[in-house]
């Protein structure tokens, strides 16, 4: 792998993010999107986050898929119980830690 791979990613992450924020700030005062495209954009965060989580979450603990399954279940249950974001993250990390240590 190219030894500059990571620094390229870091710099490109700026190139791919900053203009999205700056262009409307500089040029567009109000954006009128049609209903369909507005709904499309509203959905992107949910589909993107879901796709980022599944199936990646099952492989997030090296050599211990069961710990990852337990962490996933705990996170979903805590989120269903409407725990705050920080609590969901904390209990999920704690569950994985316990599962790793116990196995």
């Amino acid at each position: 792998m190219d030894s500059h791979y990571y620094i390229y990613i870091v710099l490109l992450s700026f190139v791919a993010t900053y203009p999205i924020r700056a262009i409307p700030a500089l040029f567009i005062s109000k954006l009128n999107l049609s209903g369909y495209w507005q709904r499309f954009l509203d959905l992107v965060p949910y589909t993107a986050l879901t796709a980022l989580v599944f199936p990646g979450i099952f492989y997030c603990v090296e050599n211990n898929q069961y710990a990852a399954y337990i962490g996933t279940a705990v996170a979903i249950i805590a989120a269903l119980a409407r725990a705050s974001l920080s609590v969901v993250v904390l209990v999920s990390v704690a569950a994985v830690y316990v599962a790793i240590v116990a196995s």
Partner: protein
Amino acid sequence: MNSRQLFLLGAKHSIPICLGYIFVGIAYAVMAKQTGYSNFETILMSMICYSGSGQFLAVTQAKEGASLIAIVIGLILLNFRYFIMSTCVFARFKKLSNFKRAWFAHYITDEPFAIFTTAKEDLISVWYFAGLFLVSWCSWISGAVLGVVANDIFPYDLTQAMGIALYALFIAIVVPAGKCNFKLLIVILSAAIINILLSQVLDSCWAILSTIIICSAIGAFFVDAKVKSDDSKKTEPVAQDSVSNNAEPTQKEDEVVKNG
């Protein structure tokens, strides 16, 4: 209120955001370090990219050795919501130089956006903005710095366990939204299933991109992901300290458009 009071009030309003940002910033940095980023690259990315889900995407895809173009396309798709948020925030400023617009635009993220665009009219000022957005940004970088340190001093099992933190955060954002909107729940579940299936046959980066486009494009025909006003109270505490994505900002921004 004078400029100093406005700045301090903005900073005060950013405290719940900062708590969330520091913790998730640590988790991001630990993950980046485990992927192979140097300390410098890890912290620099928090400074110049400043997008929780964007950085998460870039790190997980780097782990797979994804092509740079795939990472850029993914970042653009994932961050496209900032386009709309930035439009709303800067529409609230009557007079602002282009230099300041270009400078401040960098600090647009979901949570400060949600607070700023719902703040009282008399708070809308450069100093209130600076207090709210700059302090949030600093807390995100502090998280990355702490994470780099934590990676060296935390026991291996604990840093391993922290690898689930950002996944858990996204579950915490998506699940409550699906719980109070059945159609959205269907889209979320199908996105999970489609991505699990697609990642069997495609590189994970292309699987994720295809899933985002397919599910959003089909879902947009019948789902309105905006939080209804009845549900907005329930999701309020969530929006206050989430780090990357939430329905709340889009809803708030919609109100601003109507009001403005």
